[in-house]
């Protein structure tokens, strides 16, 4: 379809309305409207135009304003659509403050063969592999197949190239187990043939962009080649354009990028491609002013023009220049095979003198199976590419890798092996004519000889880098930023390496390239995030009583993935008032806490007791059925890892609880020891966290409340003592009641089936004598009693003895995990940081958690000797003052000492106290 037959689309650029055609890119439509200056360069503020025609373009980076703001997008890759609004940029874009309303998602795919690139080589390879019965995915970043065929109009096998490509694609998709992904950029090649691609499905699609995560048995890279620039003065001026790009605008889009053109070619690699471009432009009505061929000694020494090219300067360095009027200068500095994905896979590159470019060398080892064909390895003729595609996927090469079972081993394929020599012959005269590399046109002043047009890096900048002593391309890249941003070396990479090699007087092949890293083209965070945003970012876990907490206006806190009520403010209450009220209720009457999130692990088997003896610091096997014991677990390094209660349900059956955040880690810990060290132990561990809903009933009034709810239960202290459990009915619900306390008060934890959690909660509150309290009050109450919270008062450097819990460490057991470490010289040091209480001398001053503790009333010069830090700090209703817990060096020996906590510019005096500040005799808890 010719250009004039395509649908007309309206768009704006920099606020001015234009018309383009269906199938245009924004760049093509701008050129069709005569807009040649589309950006301002990032550091030098120079005018920039349209240099390329697809992802290789380094200059036409614009801002999309509508339909949704998107910064720094290549105009050469934006499909034009009605209503598009874009504007020029000076290097940096603008992010939208609003959430992106478009939908993004992701999918996984598996295949025997993934072919990247649907040009002549890739199409042939994919079709051939599919015919052999392989499951094939063919991905190409263009909207239509054919690779460069629509750009060049070249024929294939006697047919017009575009027609041939469509027919091949049609045959391919008709075969079973094939998938054709157009507008899909393969951006990353990771271990074990895992590739990530981004499909751009368009503004009207339900899903705007989709991430494909592909595990391929084998990968065939047919990614083509990019033409590269030549470094001469002013080679960035709008109107200077890659010859291949100009040809693409004429042939693919029907857009004439200028009126009178000069051509500057080195003939490198591509042979006569620049001449072919000139011929096509002339046929489209562009006057060809002159072809300057470096092979014949011709040089373009510069361009003239204010904001865009008006004339081209032709001559010799230092000599007189001839000025040729032209508004377009086509440059062709040779071709760079697109080796990005091959290099990402771990393949090594080698420099090929014949085409003056880096080509795939030694293939990657390990789990990669990759082969590079066609222009991507320097075969630049269409016939040669078709032959490569056939060879790559023809038996007997294919069957070894075409397997339905991914368990079978794969045979790595040498990237450069198949038909290496024949392919070179196939390349023929127009393919790889003796390249005469010309990288830069000599001059006195190199400040406008650009090697990276996007990052404003010039030959002068490279001179600066090498003069500063830099010898590695990696260092020069970081010093100058050459090859960063969109370009990723597409146009700048080989040129930069070659110019550095020239400056250092070394061989470019020996110097090498910078490391190729994903992504090959920019990918937005919205695309990568996909649907994992907002509420779907992470699972939210709520308890059976959650709706009731919401009804009570609970303020929630996140504990792992759990939502836990932090406090329940009454009208007019702030957090401090609510927490003081909730604490007072527990200390003076009765409170109720949703404790369902505590981790619960069911441990069963003849050796269950032995397993727990080895994992807890204290003795578990002596626990009687019906009784409960508090326990602490350490890592092998002796540091506290978790704590909780162990209840014995039967001789071979225990239920252990963990901290909310550590539930999964403790189960993993048990499994690791069971499986890897003690497989002889007959014990099994199962998570039952979400099977039991738990309500903590705490306070001096709790016994009466329980008695009313559980008439069958004898609740007196003698029948139901501290650290025992009973099965009974509570509010008519089958329940297990544990008499344990995390508040220091008389307390019970009532466990029922998760399904009845809400019913139990309602029944407890229906008594009218119980106040719901949240995790903040729970924290205050336990801190008053000196109970540590693992992970808040500990940090992986704290032993049970450091917490003042020598009593929890068994002296009788021959071993438990962590025991040997407790005997190490370091863990036995008397000046270790120990848990203590801190009482600010001013009882209204609340210390900041994390505050450092020092011994002097003035700040000495740094480094200030620090004794420890504040781990918990609260306002206490029971104590009528503020207090804190802290880890302090030599803690227990400092009781009564005055220490200081620096806060901002003042030193707050505090008195060291025992860490148990409330009811140290535990008469309230045990009564």
């Amino acid at each position, binding site marked *: 379809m010719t250009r004039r037959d395509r649908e007309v689309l309206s768009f704006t650029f920099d606020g001015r309305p234009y018309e383009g055609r269906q199938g245009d890119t924004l760049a093509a439509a701008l050129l069709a409207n005569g807009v040649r200056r589309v950006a301002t360069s990032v550091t030098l503020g120079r005018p920039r135009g349209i240099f390329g025609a697809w992802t290789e373009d380094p200059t036409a980076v614009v801002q999309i304003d509508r339909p949704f703001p998107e910064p720094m997008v290549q105009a050469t890759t934006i499909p034009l659509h009605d209503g598009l609004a874009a504007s020029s940029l000076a290097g940096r874009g603008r992010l939208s403050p609003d959430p992106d309303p478009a939908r993004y998602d992701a999918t996984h795919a598996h295949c025997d063969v993934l072919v990247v690139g649907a040009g002549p080589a890739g199409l042939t390879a994919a079709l051939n592999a599919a015919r052999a019965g392989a499951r094939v995915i063919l991905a190409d970043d263009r909207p239509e197949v054919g690779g460069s065929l629509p750009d060049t109009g070249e024929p294939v096998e006697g047919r017009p190239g575009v027609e041939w490509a469509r027919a091949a694609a049609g045959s391919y998709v008709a075969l079973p187990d094939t998938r054709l992904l157009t507008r899909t950029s393969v951006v990353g090649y990771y*271990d*074990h043939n895992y590739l990530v691609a981004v499909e751009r499905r368009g503004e009207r699609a339900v899903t705007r962009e989709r991430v494909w995560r592909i*595990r391929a048995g084998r990968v065939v890279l047919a990614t083509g080649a990019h033409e590269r620039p030549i470094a001469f003065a002013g080679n960035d001026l709008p109107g200077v354009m890659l010859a291949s790009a100009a040809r693409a605008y004429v042939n693919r889009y029907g857009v004439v990028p200028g009126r009178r053109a000069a051509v500057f070619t080195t003939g490198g690699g591509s042979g006569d491609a620049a001449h072919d471009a000139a011929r096509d432009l002339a046929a489209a009505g562009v006057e060809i002013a002159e072809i300057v061929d470096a092979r014949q000694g011709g040089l373009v020494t510069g361009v003239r023009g204010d904001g865009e090219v008006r004339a081209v300067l032709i001559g010799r360095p230092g000599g007189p220049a001839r000025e040729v009027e032209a508004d377009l200068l086509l440059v062709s500095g040779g071709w760079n095979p697109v080796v990005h994905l091959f290099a990402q896979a771990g393949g090594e590159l080698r420099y090929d003198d014949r085409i003056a470019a880096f080509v795939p060398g030694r293939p990657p080892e390990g*789990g990669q199976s990759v082969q590079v064909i066609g222009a991507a390895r320097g075969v630049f003729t269409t016939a040669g590419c078709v032959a490569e595609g056939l060879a790559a996927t023809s038996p007997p090469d294919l069957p070894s890798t075409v397997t339905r079972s991914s368990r079978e081993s794969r045979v790595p394929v040498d990237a450069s092996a198949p038909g290496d020599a024949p392919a070179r012959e196939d390349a023929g005269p127009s393919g790889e004519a003796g390249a005469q590399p010309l990288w830069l046109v000599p001059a006195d002043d190199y400040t406008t000889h650009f090697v990276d047009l996007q990052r404003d890096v010039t030959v002068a900048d490279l001179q600066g880098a090498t003069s500063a002593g830099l010898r590695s391309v990696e260092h020069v890249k970081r010093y100058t930023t050459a090859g960063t941003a969109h370009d990723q070396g597409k146009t700048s990479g080989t040129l930069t390496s070659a110019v550095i090699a020239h400056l250092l007087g070394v061989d470019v092949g020996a110097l090498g390239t910078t490391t190729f890293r994903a992504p090959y083209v920019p990918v937005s965070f919205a695309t990568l995030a996909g649907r994992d945003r907002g509420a779907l970012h992470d699972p939210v876990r709520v308890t059976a009583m959650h709706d009731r907490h919401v009804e009570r206006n609970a303020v929630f806190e996140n504990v792992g993935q759990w939502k836990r009520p932090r406090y329940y403010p009454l009208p007019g209450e702030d957090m401090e008032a609510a927490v003081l009220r909730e604490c007072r209720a527990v200390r003076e009457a009765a409170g109720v806490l949703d404790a369902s999130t505590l981790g619960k692990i069911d441990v069963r088997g003849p050796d269950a007791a032995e397993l727990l003896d080895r994992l807890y610091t204290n003795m578990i096997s002596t626990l009687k059925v019906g009784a409960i014991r508090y326990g602490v677990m350490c890592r092998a*390094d002796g540091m506290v890892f978790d704590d909780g209660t162990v209840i014995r349900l039967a001789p071979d059956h225990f239920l252990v609880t963990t901290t909310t955040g550590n539930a999964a880690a403790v189960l*993993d810990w048990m*499994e690791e020891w069971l499986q890897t060290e003690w497989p002889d132990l007959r014990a099994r561990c199962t998570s039952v966290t979400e099977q039991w809903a738990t309500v903590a009933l705490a306070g001096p009034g709790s016994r009466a409340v329980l008695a009313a709810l559980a008439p069958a239960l004898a609740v007196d202290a003698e029948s139901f003592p501290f650290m025992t459990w009973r099965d009974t009915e509570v509010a008519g619900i089958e329940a297990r009641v544990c008499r344990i306390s995390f508040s220091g008060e008389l307390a019970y934890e009532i466990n029922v089936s998760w399904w009845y959690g809400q019913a139990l909660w309602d029944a407890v509150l229906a008594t009218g004598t119980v106040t719901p309290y949240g995790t903040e009050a729970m924290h205050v109450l336990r801190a008053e009693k000196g109970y540590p919270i693992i992970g808040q008062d500990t940090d992986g450097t704290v032993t049970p003895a450091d917490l003042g819990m020598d009593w929890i460490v068994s002296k009788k057991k021959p*071993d438990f995990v962590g025991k040997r470490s407790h005997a*190490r010289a370091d863990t036995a040091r008397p000046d270790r940081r120990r848990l203590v209480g801190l009482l600010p001398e001013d009882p209204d001053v609340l210390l900041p958690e994390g505050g450092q503790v020092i011994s002097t009333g003035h700040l000495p010069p740094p480094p200030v000797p620090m004794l420890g830090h504040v781990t918990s700090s609260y306002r206490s209703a029971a104590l009528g003052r503020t207090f804190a817990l802290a880890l302090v060096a030599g803690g227990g020996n400092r009781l009564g000492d005055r220490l200081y906590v620096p806060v901002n510019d003042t030193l707050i005096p505090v008195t060291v106290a025992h860490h148990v500040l409330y009811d140290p005799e535990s008469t309230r808890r045990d009564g």
Partner: protein
Amino acid sequence: MLLIPCPWCGPRDEAEFHYGGQAHVAYPADPAALTDEEWARYLFFRDNPMGPFSERWNHTSGCRRWFTVTRDTTTNAITPETSR
């Protein structure tokens, strides 16, 4: 994304596994008999070879079993080590 051969479930994406470090570091039979230095070597010292390395993996999002593979740290080539 490594493709890790779980001996129970077959090859699965690395994201399903947790890494367990060097394999064949057994818990000492009698920790109390070790010197502080010997104990510290068990706790803290691990090999870091360039080349084949025996390492443990746990199929946390699958069968939850521990197993051992040999991974070449220069190429990431993985070969199963433990049979089921």
